[in-house]
């Protein structure tokens, strides 16, 4: 990979991140579309959770990540501390893979 392509990717990735903070500021959010914009990350995060659990490279797979997410869900529901949730999920997957 050439440095040129790498720097182009870095510039594009940064431009995407900076679109809101630098160019739009808080103007959009103060308008009527603010409430909708505020909800947008929620389906993205929900999708991220399931894709990270089930993605097997262009197909869906059921492996140790699924019971690990189940354990995490029960702990989140029982209002366990964040660290407990994350460590329990990793431990569940690690034990199932022994």
């Amino acid at each position, binding site marked *: 990979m050439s440095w040129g392509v790498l720097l182009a*990717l*870095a510039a594009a990735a940064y431009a995407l991140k900076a679109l*809101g*903070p630098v160019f739009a*500021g808080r103007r959009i959010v103060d308008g009527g579309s603010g409430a909708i914009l505020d909800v947008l990350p929620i389906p993205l995060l929900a999708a991220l959770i399931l894709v990270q659990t089930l993605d097997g490279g262009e197909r869906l797979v059921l492996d140790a990540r699924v019971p690990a997410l189940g354990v995490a869900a029960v702990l989140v529901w029982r209002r366990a501390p964040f660290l407990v949730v*994350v460590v329990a999920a990793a431990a569940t997957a690690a034990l199932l893979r022994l």
Partner: protein
Amino acid sequence: MGPRTITRDALAIGVATGVYAVSYGVLAVSAGLSVAQTCAMSALVFTGASQFAVVGVLGAGGGALAALGPALLLATRNAVYGLSLGPVLRGGRARRALEAQLVIDESTAMARGQEDPRSAHRAFLVTGLSVFAFWNLGTLIGALAGGGLGDPRAFGLDAMFPAVFLALLAPQLRRPGARTAALAGALIAVVLVPLTPAGLPIMAALLGVVPALAVVRRHAREAAR
């Protein structure tokens, strides 16, 4: 969340991503990137999913330009995060421009879990800096060490990230319309995973807000009164 809890959780997320960065470093070097390029990518691109996509395409024998498409598609969600963080970020344009580099999944999710704007900004900044520090440190270790460090999956580390985002998403589900949007978005993404290139399923999940629009608008109108 108090400042101490924010810092503790941010450090935990940082360490988890740092361990993953080690595996990125190993893969990047074995895919033909130099150590300097591997590290530059973590510092300058700084969005994990895109970096793994680039390395994946290069490792499979693809060209650098072929790697750009999926990498950019995966980075597109950061634009949505940046737009939604408008009220959270502070200061003038220069400071916003600097903090924009920290707009990623983890910092956004942590910021949105807070109750007031001040804690939200703190959570964004502390999480972003923690992940940045550990991500770059882990990358350097992986790039220098090469293979032989073991598979992070054996330690269940890949199962950590869904748990991280679930714990961060759960408090947000109380917002009006949030459950509908989350459920619809997750369904759209899962259906699309086998059918579309990486990155597209998560962006398409944005359409999950459509069934929630009526509820969101009604609550926004009521709140404005």
